[in-house]
């Protein structure tokens, strides 16, 4: 199954560029990307089964915990670093964003938007939200940080990241009207200011 954000992220990636996909999962995005355009890419993933899936797909994958930083990668060594729906699973949020910005000339960060109206409604009724973009119960979620479009903008600015582009989606379609209320998935293209 293709995730709604794949196409939007791929749009921001230039052909023949160097790409690093952090938290690349089973390699679905990199496989999709390479079908769209020629790129030279590596994935980084911690989970054994997902690393295996990447190898089965013939992808370059590096097994590593992102919490430890990106010491294996040199400054500016990638045209684009992708952090797709991974930011919310990482404890050291600021550290990883700094590392992403160090390694990539540009970075693409996507995350589920906690401020979507359905989530607000759920919390309003006294329950943690469970939705397509946050499909877990509070006790079994891999997400350790929940954030909103507005939160990310503020953090990016405090880390010295310039937002080059943003794309807020709901059910695969772009939301332009009050995106922090009506968008369930946020994508940002950023670089060091």
């Amino acid at each position, binding site marked *: 199954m293709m995730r709604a954000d794949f196409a939007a992220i791929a749009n921001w990636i230039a052909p023949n560029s160097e790409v690093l996909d952090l938290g690349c999962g089973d390699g679905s995005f990199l496989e999709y990307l390479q079908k769209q355009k020629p790129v030279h890419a590596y994935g980084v993933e911690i989970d054994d089964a997902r*690393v295996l899936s990447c190898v089965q797909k013939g992808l370059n994958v590096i097994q590593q915990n992102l919490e430890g930083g990106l010491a294996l990668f040199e400054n500016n060594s990638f045209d684009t670093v992708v952090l797709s729906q991974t930011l919310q699973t990482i404890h050291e949020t600021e550290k990883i964003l700094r590392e992403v910005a160090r390694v990539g000339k540009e970075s693409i960060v996507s995350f589920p938007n906690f401020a979507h109206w359905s989530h607000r409604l759920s919390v309003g009724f006294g329950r943690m939200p469970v939705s397509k973009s946050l499909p877990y119960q509070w006790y079994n979620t891999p997400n350790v940080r929940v954030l909103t479009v507005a939160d990310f903008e503020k953090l990016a600015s405090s880390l010295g990241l310039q937002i080059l582009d943003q794309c807020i989606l709901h059910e695969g379609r772009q939301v332009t009207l009050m995106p922090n209320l009506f968008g369930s998935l946020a994508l940002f293209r950023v670089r060091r200011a």
Partner: protein
Amino acid sequence: MSELHLSRNTIHFAEPLPLQSGAILSGYDLVIETYGKLNADKSNAVLVCHALNASHHVAGSNPDDAKDIGWWDNMIGPGKPVDTDHFFVIGVNNLGSCFGSTGPKSINPASGKQYGADFPVITVEDWVNTQARLADKLGIRRFAAVMGGSLGGMQALAWSIQFPKRLAHCLVIASTPKLSAQNIAFNEVARNAILSDPDFHGGNYYEHGVVPKRGLRLARMVGHITYLSDDDMAEKFGRELQRPNGEPQDYRFSFDVEFEVESYLHHQGDKFSTYFDANTYLLITRALDYFDPSRRYGGSLNRALAEVQAKFLVVSFSTDWRFPPNRSREIVESLLSNKSEVSYAEIDAPHGHDAFLLDDPRYHNLIRAYFEQMLEVQS
């Protein structure tokens, strides 16, 4: 069930071999075993490089002794991760070894006597040169893969540097780009055990009809400790005392074998000293010490690996303290820096360095997937 198609040959090389040390070996033999069938365009060959005390006998039963199963039999064979129904696998016994290839026990044509101490010091790069000549003889221009664990991984890495066009894939498992001071220290203790054995006779013990068994036993005991993890030893032996059934677990207040782990080490050391050659142990540990491809590039592994063309799979094991994951990451880091094709897996296995020889599903599935992918790309 398909067959392994094991075949063993001794191949003679008459052309002199210049060694890294400056010495020249006038001619030499290599013993090889092959498994599976070489395809028509000779594109399915996989070279397996062996580790310290292993040999050409990688898979299946030894034709001379059915109980002697190849050291990587769980990895290589029909339907196994390195599937000999598709790949033609070559196990080669390294020069200087004591399992049939020319080594210190062989006759030196210059003197008519066994080489003994006169056998020249060999490096990993020398081994790779002999293996490339072997490939020439077999008509293999490019290996589908060169692979190895530990010292075998160093050979695979050296292959990618010395003959970048001659291997499509390079698998470096539980290895390191160079030994640490601690690694060299352990090797030195092992060598010293051998060198100080009264039966060593400066390496010419063959003439005296003796073997420096005590030294070899000690060397192996030291080495063996580094192959296992602390947890693994605790699990296997704990502080159990070596006592016959029913006898109370009380201390004897002596220096004889008291603990199970001591008994295990003695057993491993004794076994080793009956089949391994002391001069070979010295040579191989020295080859380990000397290996450092970055040396001729001012210490830069990035530069040493700048010309590699092979696609890499690097694998380490979390509890390996001989060559811990950090050492494998150095290789990965340099490959990444050069934008080489590389995948890296860090297997969380409890068995220490020896894990690369053991049957761990995560590890074996990974190798299987990697080789299956090779076939898919080929076809």
